[in-house]
């Protein structure tokens, strides 16, 4: 979702758009856990998006809280630059605790 290239990218004048804008839905399955992306839906406004998210994504008590956000408002990293972005972390093994070999007597550290 690098560029908001979804077909429902809003046009300048909302009255001219015929398709309801696209929203991404995030659900917290229970208190103590993160909200997790679970899908998307079309809705005319925020209230309707929340209502529809409840109907579409929590029919079986899958959630205790729902977030919705307009898809065109999400900024994402470019999948084409995935390697450049994320691979540099590959050779920084010293960031992991297992990199350090300690005497057995203190190895629980």
């Amino acid at each position, binding site marked *: 979702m690098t560029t908001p290239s979804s*077909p*429902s990218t809003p046009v300048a004048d909302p009255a001219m758009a*015929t*398709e*309801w804008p696209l929203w991404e839905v995030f659900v917290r399955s229970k208190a103590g856990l993160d909200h997790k992306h679970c899908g998307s839906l079309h809705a*005319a*406004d925020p209230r309707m998006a929340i209502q529809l998210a409840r109907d*579409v994504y929590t*029919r079986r008590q899958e959630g205790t809280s729902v977030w919705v956000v307009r898809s065109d408002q999400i900024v994402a990293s470019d*999948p084409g630059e995935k390697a450049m972005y994320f691979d540099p972390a590959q050779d920084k093994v010293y960031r992991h605790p297992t990199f350090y070999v300690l005497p057995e007597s203190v190895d629980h550290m």
Partner: protein
Amino acid sequence: MYTQAMDTMGKDGGDAKALRSAEEMQRQEAFDARIDAGEFIEAKDWMPDHYRKTLLRQISQHAHSEIVGMLPEGNWISRAPTLKRKAILLAKVQDEGGHGLYLYAAAETLGTSRDQMIDALHTGRAKYSSIFNYPTLTWADMGTIGWLVDGAAIMNQVPICRCSYAPYARAMVRICREESFHQRQGYDALLTMVQQGTDAQRAMVQDAVNRWWWPSIMMFGPPDDQSPNSAQSMRWGIKRISNDTLRQKFIDATVEQAQLLGVTLPDPDLKWNEERQAHDYGAIDWSEFWRVIGGDGPCNEERLGARVKAWDDGAWVREAALAHAAKHTPVRAAA
């Protein structure tokens, strides 16, 4: 609920065009390597046009099937025999609507709008599962659809949870998780009819099974040797198990369930083959399948007509909701 080897229905399939440039060739190779390594492809990743087209056709037609599939069962909501059965049927039909929405959303990630897909359905360019072009004549049809039609659908759909296209696979995981109640409630409804019902009700169950059996096993799609696009779909990890293999698995599983229910399956050639360790079954009338897919089933016109009418009748609601939103949401400054 229901996919049926939809990949065999596109007439634009199988024409892997000559690759244009060395760069594209490289991308194609990298893509093939990812598929071979069992990696998932995400929406914004590069993918061959034909892969995109094949998926778009399959996922959108799967979505259409869910939505059209609400109609035959919706037919019985107001006439369910008890409040319990009515609540169950409502929940099931609502699920089908939800499944259609998950799938439309997955298809939209491939770059087609919801409206375009709906237009394709309404103008007959896109197909939906042929099974929904059969009428639901009695209450026993509700149980039978759950048992056989949803049962066949589940068998078809479980392998798609491992589809190489991640948004489709994720939607299918969600769908499969919700779907198993559909089959169980159907079998449960039939059990109640045969165990606690009258002779007339038992006959009703048998009649429903007689009518739905053949269309149900057709849901797995044409035989492997007449399924020209299957090989490519297998290569791409869109399809995991062949039509005939799934059909056999379904038949083998269903025979015992039918015995327990005390109904017969309407195929005189159906019998256990000790050597194959599987059931042999009679010849399927594929001319019927192609006729119904082609538009000449008992209810094609009615089903599509109901969808088009719902869409047209709802136009003012869609427009009003947008107008209301425009009036009450401050217009965001253009980025």
